[in-house]
């Protein structure tokens, strides 16, 4: 391999993503911010807040604490 391009300056706003957020991920993230702002910071607040807002899991189910933990681990690890 030869020398990689060295373009100055490196100014890349997103350095931690491995993909553009999907519409589902954006909606989930924005809803979580709304819940944290208005409902609370406990896990029960989050699960209750998502379900109250009719935001469903990718398979269309209501959230449980377990499915939320699993999904956050998948998306945030």
């Amino acid at each position, binding site marked *: 391999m030869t020398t990689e391009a060295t373009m100055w300056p490196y100014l890349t706003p997103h350095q931690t993503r491995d993909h553009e957020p999907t519409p589902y991920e954006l909606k989930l993230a924005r809803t*979580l911010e709304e819940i944290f702002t208005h409902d609370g910071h406990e896990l029960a607040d989050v699960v209750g807040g998502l379900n109250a807002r009719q935001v469903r899991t990718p398979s269309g189910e209501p959230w449980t604490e377990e499915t939320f933990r699993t999904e956050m681990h998948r998306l945030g690890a």
Partner: protein
Amino acid sequence: MPLSVSDTADHVYAHGLRNQWHPVVPSHFVAPGGLRKLTALGENWLLFRKADGTLSMLADRCPHRGAPLSLGKHLGDRVACWYHGVEVDGSGTVTSVPGLPGCNLEGKTLVTSLPVREVGGAILAYFGDDEHPEPADLTLPEPLTDPAVSAFLCYAEWDVPWRYAMENLLDPMHGAFLHHESHTMYDGDTQAKFRIRETERGYFFEKTDQRGVNFDWVELCRTGVDWVDLSIPYPPSAGPGGPFGIVGMACPVDAERTGVFFWRYRRVDDWQRDTWRFLYKTLIEERHWQVLEQDRVMLEAMPADADQYENLYQHDLGVVRLRRLYQGQAAQQSKAAPQS
């Protein structure tokens, strides 16, 4: 060619202090089996990574005629200069002179090779001068080594002298003004009194009358590498886990350019950690970037002689302390006759 003690103190102050570690570029800038040219402390360097991940940093200068090795070929465990094919390994030793086998350059270590470490997704290198080639003790910032902390690196390149980038960090009061419209630094008083508190590894510069509201304190840490630690509250939208911290470092590229390294970190675990990381990648990183851009725009617009014609006040004690520290060290590192 190692950095020379015959450089003037002004040159050292402008191009970066020696005999310590500096960050150079993010680790992913040099892939396994790759070469990467870079400039640091005003000199040209070559990062060279073997397929197994082993990293070397060499002066970008063939020992034969001085051609840049970065234009050469990666041969797996060594690099071949494009000009005459002279081969140099990761330790800086000439392994072969293809045009004249048996040439007395073979077997000699003629290219400066800097000690390197990788931490938190960044490459650190030790820049000793010709009298201090052995690496200084390095204590890594604990937020980057503590498993209870989750961190993301943000790297950016600014057309700014390295010392302006550092002074900006020792100037917390700019948060309440420059970043007033940002998502994290909108709150708190726009008037403050500051104090300096010495520590064994550097000093705190902190507000005496407000904490945990804006960018209210910063600690300069000199642990073999210079870094700052600071903390900024998140709004409730960021969820549980408290404020986010920043470990900041700067790479003096040359007298006018700086690579800035900011690890945004948070003490979080379990679902709170995963949720923060998801929100960070999806929404928060972009907002942090906008704040960082405010710093870049302001610092790049500063006149070159900004620090020559100033009228400082009490909030600038942290900056003054930093300048004295760095200017004093630059003078110590130079054996050149002082310029009149």
